[in-house]
């Protein structure tokens, strides 16, 4: 026992052997409610957006360097790989935006009832899909 708090976390199993009680979060025994998936996706999308800032930085630096290097950057963004990256970036950005607004709403102390919690989670998913698809429809048809 390294810590006095461990005393509360030790129990006997059915064979009478001393075992550690499972610690929370004990992910593998729980089903995944939508809010739990949303929570970890918020982090994951945030990290992905960190990688996305490299794309934005390259785009801006290339434009500032020369017309030729900007042409290279624009060619890459228009290629299949570039478009896939941009699509991933747009999903992550719009998801993180919608989920972030939900977090700000909950920071105000509202929306913690289970029904509201699940409802706002579903709303985030729907808003992400609608806004992402909408942005790509406008993006691909405009110009």
């Amino acid at each position, binding site marked *: 026992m390294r810590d006095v708090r461990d005393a509360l976390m030790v129990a006997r199993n059915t064979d009478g052997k001393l075992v550690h009680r499972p610690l929370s979060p004990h992910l593998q025994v729980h089903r995944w409610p939508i809010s739990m998936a949303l929570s970890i996706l918020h*982090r994951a999308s*945030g*990290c992905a*957006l*960190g990688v996305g*800032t*490299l794309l*934005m*930085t390259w785009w*801006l*630096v290339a*434009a*500032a360097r*020369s*017309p030729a290097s*900007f*042409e290279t950057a*624009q060619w890459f963004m*228009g290629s299949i790989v570039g478009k896939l990256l941009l699509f991933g970036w*747009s999903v992550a*950005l*719009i998801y993180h*935006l919608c989920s*972030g*607004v939900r*977090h*700000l709403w909950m*920071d105000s102390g509202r929306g913690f009832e289970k029904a509201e919690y699940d409802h706002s989670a579903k709303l985030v998913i729907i808003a992400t899909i609608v806004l992402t698809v909408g*942005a790509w429809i*406008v*993006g691909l048809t*405009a*110009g």
Partner: protein
Amino acid sequence: MANSQGAPHVDMLRSPLGRARGLGSARAGAAHWWAQRLTAVALVPLTLWFIWTVIRLKGADQAGVVAWLASPVALVMMLALIVATFHHLQLGLQVVIEDYVKGHGTKLTAILAIKAACFLLALACIVSVLKLGGA
């Protein structure tokens, strides 16, 4: 207080001065949390504006970008977006590292590396945007 004798109360070891300062055991109080929220609120309109801008600049050449940033409004919005984005990013990644990286030295190194990277990327973006806006 004489008139609160017998009333339900919570005993705290924190001194009245400590409570008034509100800085907690980490001595930074809610500054990190607050900065994260502040930048989040700022990023809601800025991000929507940026998505719209990216769509508008689809397939543009460099002259198109220069023309876009010639507007002081676009330049200011872009600078605000860059500052808020990278500040928000380094605050968020710091929490992720604090939660998942084991070992004090590794953790500190990772946090410093993230902060340095975000700072340099932000400077690169700011300098580029100013150069384009002044061109």
